[in-house]
Structure formats: C-alpha cells, structure tokens
C-alpha cells in the first residue's frame, strides 16, 4: 500500500530504490572528508575510469563558490549537463545529513534530465571528521583523508573514518615529504574499522584510482543484482 502510494506520486520523497515510474534509480555514493584531502580529484579520476562503462552524474556541494563543479567542468570529465552544484548555506554537513532536500532534488533532476543513470557521485563540501552522509541521500559513503593531514587521523577515528563504507588514505606519494608513516595509518585504520575496507592511493600515479574504481564496480554489481 505504501509502495502504491509512491508509484502514483509525481516525485519520490525518500531513498526508495524505485523511481516514480517504477524503474530502478541510480546507485548514489557520497564522498566526504576534510577540505583538500582529494575528494574532487577522486571524483574526477572515477569519472574518467568509469564513464565508458556506466552512465554517470556528479553532484558537488560547494561551501561558498562553484569551485568543485567548475574544476570538473574544466577538466571535462563529464558533459556539463551531468554535473550539478548544490549551495549549502555555510553548513556543508547539514546539506548531506540533517537536511538533504537540496541534494535529493539535484539527484532527481539529473535522473530526469540526463537519465537513466547507473551511478551518481555526491561530493560533500568538505568538513570536519564528524561529517557523515544521511542514508536517505546515499547508499554508500566514502571518506577521504590524506597523509598530509597528519598520520594520527585514523587513530583519532570519528564517525567518517570509523564507519564509512570505504576509507581512502590519499596522497601516499607525499608521505616521505611530510613524514607520515603509512604502515601506522593502515594499522590504526584497521583497529577502528575492523573489517571495513581501506584503500591507500596516490592519484599522482598511473591508474591511481583503480582500487577505488573496482570497489565502485562491486557496489554497482550488488545494487543491480
């Protein structure tokens, strides 16, 4: 009965897996983490790696400019109509967790206008270690930290590091210059995350996003199974 109600409705109101017309909506993956850790760079690399095999779109949440969306447009990782910028009103975590309406609207509009889509990547505006995505907005979340932010971040934990479906420790190429101990970061991450996966990557290296792209492929396979 609940389902019928949604099928008749002109717009989905929540995280329902079906669109109003009954088709399956795109898998939504959120990328969060501190400012500058490499979220936009990871989104760009994922678009390049996956755009031939998947129908993709991106939602960025910029804090006070359209910088991230413009970077992705400049790099031409996707056609412009597949990239939408959401304005977050000085509170990036509110827009991905407490009040997700603007982001849901952006996702729905992308599906309406350039769909059908397989995957929508939602990049958070960049926040502190407590920022996480609502399950009403994304199906899986990736938390991106970098080695230059200090190798004690995995030990400090916090909801993003501890509970994200995937933790990326980015910029491993910089480890020797900033004195970060990668082995210790990986071990600390394991301690706070248990069985949840961790990827150490450098986007400066050839095919640096490969492991994360494979993880996304697995999620897509599970979503469409």
């Amino acid at each position, binding site marked *: 009965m609940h389902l019928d109600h949604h099928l008749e409705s002109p717009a989905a109101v929540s995280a329902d897996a079906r669109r109003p017309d009954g088709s399956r909506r795109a898998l939504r993956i959120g990328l969060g983490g501190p400012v500058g850790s490499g979220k936009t760079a990871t989104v760009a690399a994922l678009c390049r790696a996956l755009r031939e095999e998947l129908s993709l779109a991106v939602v960025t949440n910029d804090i*006070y400019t359209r910088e991230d969306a413009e970077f992705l447009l400049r790099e031409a990782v996707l056609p412009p109509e597949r990239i939408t910028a959401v*304005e977050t*009103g*000085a509170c990036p975590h509110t*827009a991905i967790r*407490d009040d997700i309406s*603007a982001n849901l609207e952006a996702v729905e509009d992308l599906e309406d206008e350039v769909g059908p889509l397989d995957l929508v990547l939602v990049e958070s505006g960049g926040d502190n270690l407590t920022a996480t995505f609502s399950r009403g907005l994304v199906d899986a979340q990736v938390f991106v930290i970098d080695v230059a932010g200090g190798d004690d971040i995995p030990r400090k934990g916090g909801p993003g590091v501890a509970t994200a479906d995937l933790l990326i420790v980015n910029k491993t190429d910089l480890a020797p210059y900033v004195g970060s101990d990668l082995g210790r970061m990986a071990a600390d991450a394991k301690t706070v995350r248990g069985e949840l996966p961790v990827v150490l990557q450098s986007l400066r290296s050839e095919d640096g996003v490969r492991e994360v792209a494979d993880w996304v492929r697995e999620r897509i396979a599970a979503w469409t199974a």
Partner: protein
Amino acid sequence: MSRAALLVLADGRFPAGGHAHSGGAEAAVRAGRVTDAASLEAFCRGRLHTSGVVAACVAAAAALGADPGDLDRAVDARTPSPALRAAGRRLGRQLMRAARATWPSPELDAVASLFPKGAHQPVVLGAAARAAGLGALDAAYCSLYEGVSGPATAVVRLLGLDPFDATGVLARLADDMDRVARDAVETAERVVSDGVGVLPARSAPLLEIGAEAHAARAVRLFAS
C-alpha cells in the same frame, strides 16, 4: 487539530532546505545595510511588513483550501525578481518533499503533481499546514516566523553577530507578528470568497534588487 504539529512545522530544523537561504540578509550585509543587531531588526521588520505580509496571506489562504494554482500565479505577479521567484519555487519544492514524507495526504500529492518543479513556498506551506491538521492562523505564524528567523540565523553566520542579540531581535518582533498574522487570516478568508485579487501586493524593492545582485555573485555563502 494538533497544536504540537505547529511546532514540528515551524521548527528551524524541519528539513525543508531553508538552511541554505538567508532571506535576502546576505545581500543586505554585503551592501552594508545590515551591520549589527539594530540594523538586523530594521531589516526583519521591513521584511515582515512587506513580502512577509503577502507570504502570510498566501499561506493562510492555502491552509483554508484556496486554489493553489491561483495562489501561485498571484505570488508570481507579486514577485518582480526572477531570482526571488526561482528561490521561492525551489524552497516550495523542498518543503513539499519534506511535508509529503511527514504528513502524507492526497491533497499534498495533488499540489505536487500540479507543480513538479515546485509551487511558491507559501502556497506549499499552507497546504502542508492543512495536511498537518493546522489552521490558517498557524500557517500565517509559520510563514512570518521563518521569514524573520531565516535572516536572523544567517546574520549570525555572516557577521558573527552574538546569537543572543539575534534571538532578542526575533522576540521584539513578536507583537508585530501577532498583528500581521491576525490580519492575514482575515484576508485569507476574503480570498476564499472573493478570489486572489484581494491579496495585498506589498513589496520591498531593495529585497528584489538585492536578490538579483546576489544571484549574480560568484562567491556567496547562501543560495538567496
């Protein structure tokens, strides 16, 4: 009717997208017109007695069951700035999403399908109040309160204004809100009998001009 439902709808944390908007306060701050608690109060009072009156009458009329299409056109006609019209529809669409999830109702579904990209926010607010079992006075209060609390919260973020001072501003506007809300209900009752032509058409030209300037800015904290 449930009075507690009014608290749910009027709560600043009701997830309807308002947190990303400043109600024109960011443009006023950038233009140097709002600099402290006193100028914030003048700004909010001005908003309350101009666009606030219109929005409250529309919300109250929608809560009484006036035709949403007529009301929506009336708001368009009273909002010269395209940027403000766009922001109002966006907020209406987001409020509709939250309201339908919170108070499922065939009437809300009908308004949503009439306006897939959003009706003006006060039209949706009135319909949401109706779905929540609230009355026209409640809808008017909600509309007026968020019309001033949005700018006050935004100015705390924009200027680092003392949050106690900002809350004091809202408290000092309470009597004005009471009066405007009562008048809005009277107008709304006349809308039901005589049509949307009796709606007031007060406007604040600087809010309209500021909204256009704000929409053209490359760097801003709030969407409107």
